């Protein structure tokens, strides 16, 4: 058990001070904007909750939010099972383990705009490897600047490329923590591979998989740079996810009020879903 000790506050004070400086002041700025109407020359007018009402009824917001949820759902549905499958197939010891881990982690260490630029180069229809293969070798017309379906496929494949390794590494960490004795017992009992997975491996991976889903949810829901560099939200508005739309409104049109209101709703949704995951997780921890 932990010792009750109010000195704990002294230990966390520097962290609280630094994070509060970065979080509370900008957050208050956003709250401020969200209830006002901006004109040039720093003129602000009280707007009340008007922006929130307009936003919640705006089709543009609904569309962006819908695309965002669709994107996150597809990402989770692909990356989590795929990551578990790859982790199960990975070697447990030997020379190849560090090689696998390092090469798999590599995409996550590339700056996000480079990821976008790299996939842009990779998918150019005439001179990119993927674009050339699809168009000239396989004969499948593929141009993500024209075709919304191709654009969606590309941002999804890009995200799978970029982040599946996170799930792999987490699931793998869970798998290597299972003592050999468990597998031996299963062999003696004549358990099938499926029941080994269902009753030994899956329960052991539960905590790490919850972390994986939580992290993948937060990051895919907040994704901005990679799809922005890759497709710029197009063609049309087809890949304009929530963050991209937000930046368009805030910096493109300089509509600070609506953008701020949108930020707060956006943040509230992320918070709510993450809180659900977090409660699930800490429930496991306390056991």
């Amino acid at each position, binding site marked *: 058990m932990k010792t009750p000790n109010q000195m704990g506050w002294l230990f966390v004070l520097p962290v609280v001070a630094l994070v509060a400086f970065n979080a509370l002041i900008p957050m208050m700025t956003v709250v401020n904007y969200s209830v006002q109407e901006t004109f040039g020359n720093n003129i602000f007018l009280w707007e009340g909750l008007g922006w929130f009402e307009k936003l919640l009824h705006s089709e543009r917001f609904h569309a962006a939010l819908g695309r965002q949820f669709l994107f996150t759902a597809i990402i989770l549905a692909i990356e989590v099972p795929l990551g578990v499958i790859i982790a199960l197939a990975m070697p447990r010891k030997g020379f190849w383990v560090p090689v696998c881990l390092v090469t798999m982690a590599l995409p996550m*260490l590339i700056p996000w705009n480079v990821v976008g630029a790299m996939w842009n180069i990779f998918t150019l229809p005439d001179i990119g490897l993927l674009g050339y293969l699809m168009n000239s070798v396989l004969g499948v017309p593929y141009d993500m600047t024209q075709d919304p379906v191709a654009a969606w496929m590309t941002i999804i494949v890009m995200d799978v490329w970029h982040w599946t390794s996170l799930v792999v590494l*987490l699931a793998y960490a869970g798998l290597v923590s299972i003592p050999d004795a468990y597998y031996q017992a299963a062999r003696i009992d004549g358990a099938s591979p499926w029941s080994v997975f269902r009753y030994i491996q899956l329960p052991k991976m539960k905590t790490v998989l919850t972390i994986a889903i939580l992290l993948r949810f937060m990051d895919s829901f907040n994704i901005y740079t990679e799809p922005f560099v890759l497709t710029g939200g197009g063609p049309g508005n087809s890949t304009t996810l929530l963050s991209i739309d937000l930046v368009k409104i805030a910096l493109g049109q300089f509509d600070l009020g609506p953008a701020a209101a949108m930020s707060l709703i956006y943040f509230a949704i992320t918070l709510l879903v993450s809180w659900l995951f977090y409660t699930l997780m800490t429930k496991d921890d306390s056991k």
Partner: protein
Amino acid sequence: MKKRSLIPILYVLFLMLPIYWLVAMSFKTTNEILAGFSLFPQTWTFDNYITIFTDPTWYWGYINSIIYVSMNTVISVTVALPAAYAFSRFSFLGDKQLFFWLLTNRMAPAAVFALPFFQLYSAVGLFDTYLAVALAHCLFNIPLAVWILEGFMGGVPKELDETAFVDGYSFPRFFVRVFLPSIKAGVGVTAFFCFMFSWVELLLAKTLTAVAAKPIAATMTKTASSAGYELGLLAAAGTLTIIPGAIVIWFVRNHIAKGFALGRV
């Protein structure tokens, strides 16, 4: 057994393909790139790399990025250590709420903060300094660092603390001499993660800098737009941004899996 290892091999191949394409393109001349498709560079050229290493606006981009990333890593790990210790050892008023509040900052979309951050750091006179970016990245790196370190510290039995205090260690001496060495791997992994997330984040880094502390990514964006899309140069610059990550990950390769699990396995 052999059929099983096909899955990781195929996956690694899939991961390497776009990287190969980037690297291959960085060794091609602009003419060759625009002339059409070629799987390997026909005429190898190092011009793109020479441009980057001789032009100060290019190589200073790298130096700037490395400076603010290192500053952020040091700040984040230093302040996160005592906090993680408190979260893992003590219960105090509001500890659970505080921990969750810290995590919420890892969830905030960076796009939300771009403009307010610009105003805040301009107001305190830090705009376009390394410190501004290093401090701004604390927003998401400190919560992460606390989270990972708390996981690793939770794995150290409390008896270690108690024995040390009975042996007459003062708290600071215990913390530095006994406790830190026992979570060495955790500290290394945490530093790696701070480096990684600060290195890959560019929206805030770009917003908070103009000239003096401009990250490499901003230089790349400028090239893409002003010099009529010099793909070879862009590819070379992109290739060079992969190298620091590849170097730091090699140091923590044995602890990386546990690190990604936030020390909780």
